[in-house]
């Protein structure tokens, strides 16, 4: 649908949601905790569209996201991204899928020799590439049509996520065992790429929030030493460089998956004044917000989570109960708190479950610290 087919965002709602969203970052008092269920292609289902449509039409995608934000009364920010960014810029093929985010089908690095020859694209080259062209089409739409919902981001993932968008995950994991130095090289290149990508967004919009962290590099696939070597250390180096290059100031550490064995490493990861940490799972269970706040609450803004499996396949009562527990444990975290989902809101999640998440924040997320 073109822009004129959407009703304008309610300014009263937007003003209030903006206040709620500001609180976790700058401690300006407001009523309650804001919710960010990381709405992406889920917004399309509200318009009887699918994920394939969402990702094929970035301008329309963000209109749907912005409308969904108002509908659910959540963080008023128009986002557009998917996990497999950056492969296409280096020669990979991206496959648009009907019911899932885009996936990479043919990666550019196939052999160990390819790693040595692989050259990271400059900021100027990335700007002309397919990933940022699509990303900027979405962000420009938000900036022009929903300026108060505009917060420029760069989807990076961590070094292992970038590396496995360049080479197959099977090859990278095999090299971790047989030729770990090769993966070191790949992760260094991934880090350099992250700096150039963030610089591009910061130069275009004047500021940038980098989404980084550790998704593939989680406890279900790698041990602590591997996560430290191939994710935490190169990601930390890259974040330092990004901040030093003026390509911040926002840092969003998205630690998806199980981080029981490595979450403590990230307490000392480089942080800016606008840093948020989100951790998905503690073993097979949702990462307790009490543990998140205990370890990160005196450092940065905390993002407490509700299990995305529950949001996708649970009942509203189950979502509400878990959200209640998490929001009560986190709402007065010293440096701010946001309630959300462990990862992106599942595309086909029942809307009533997202509503249950928001209801819990309204019912139990009133601040006591102000």
């Amino acid at each position, binding site marked *: 649908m073109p822009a004129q087919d959407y009703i304008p965002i309610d300014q009263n709602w937007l003003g209030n949601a903006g206040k709620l969203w500001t609180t976790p*970052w700058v401690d300006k008092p407001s009523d309650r905790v804001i919710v960010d269920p990381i709405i992406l292609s889920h917004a399309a289902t509200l318009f009887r569209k699918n994920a394939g449509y969402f990702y094929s039409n970035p301008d329309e995608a963000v209109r749907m996201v912005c409308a969904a934000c108002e509908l659910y009364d959540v963080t008023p920010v128009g986002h557009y991204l998917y996990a497999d960014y950056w492969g296409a810029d280096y020669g990979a093929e991206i496959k648009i899928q009907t019911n899932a985010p885009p996936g990479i089908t043919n990666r550019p690095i196939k052999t160990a020799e390819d790693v040595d020859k692989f050259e990271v694209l400059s900021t100027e080259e990335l700007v002309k590439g397919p990933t940022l062209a699509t990303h900027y089409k979405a962000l420009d739409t938000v900036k022009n049509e929903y300026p108060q919902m505009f917060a420029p981001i760069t989807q990076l993932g961590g070094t292992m996520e970038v590396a496995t968008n360049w080479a197959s995950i099977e090859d990278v994991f095999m090299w971790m065992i047989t030729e770990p130095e090769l993966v070191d090289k790949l992760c260094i290149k991934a880090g350099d790429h992250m700096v150039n990508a963030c610089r591009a967004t910061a130069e275009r919009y004047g500021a940038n929030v980098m989404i980084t962290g550790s998704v593939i590099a989680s406890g279900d696939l790698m041990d602590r030493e591997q996560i430290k070597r191939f994710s*935490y250390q190169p990601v930390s180096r890259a974040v*330092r460089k990004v*901040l030093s290059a003026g390509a*911040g*100031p926002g840092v969003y550490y998205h630690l998806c998956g199980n981080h029981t064995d490595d979450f403590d490493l990230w307490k*000392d990861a480089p*942080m800016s*004044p606008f*840093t948020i940490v989100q951790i998905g799972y503690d073993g097979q269970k949702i990462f307790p917000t009490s543990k998140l706040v205990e370890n990160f609450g005196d450092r940065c803004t905390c993002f407490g989570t509700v299990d995305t499996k529950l949001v996708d396949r649970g009942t509203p009562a189950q979502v509400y109960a878990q959200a209640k527990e998490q929001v009560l444990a986190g709402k007065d975290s010293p440096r701010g708190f946001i309630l959300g989902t462990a990862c992106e809101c599942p595309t086909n999640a029942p809307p009533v479950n997202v509503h249950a998440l928001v209801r819990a924040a309204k019912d139990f997320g009133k601040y006591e610290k102000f």
Partner: protein
Amino acid sequence: MDIKITEQVDNLLKDNGVRKEEILDIIKKAESSGQKLKSKDGNTCIAKGASENLTIYAVYSATELLDVYAHKMNILGITGGEIKPVEYDDASDWICAKCGEVALERNVDMSYLGVTRPGPGLVCAKCGEMYVSAGMAKSTLKTAEAILEEKRA
């Protein structure tokens, strides 16, 4: 020390609202106390002077003022309370001239307009002196300060 100030750096002084006498005084105090950062090749130093509202830095060689920058965010201390070993290479390119220790790249708590958050700092593990690099101050902190001024208003 006889420090030359080029027209370009003089403009930087004006942009940062810093007087020549003020920056020369910061350098003089750093030279007499030894409280400064020194580049590994020994050719460049960073001195700082902190007032209630502004921390000013001078980057200089033996003969010339090379750069000036400042931040309004007030450094309070190490994020998390103490300097513990971290699991990545946190050695910076700078050495604490007083202690001879390599300055570490660590998060430091900073406060501005009543908000305290972490920021990227350079810290001497021995004497605990904390600095911010030019790159961080001119970009990350400048943007952060602008956002805080807008949102806390």
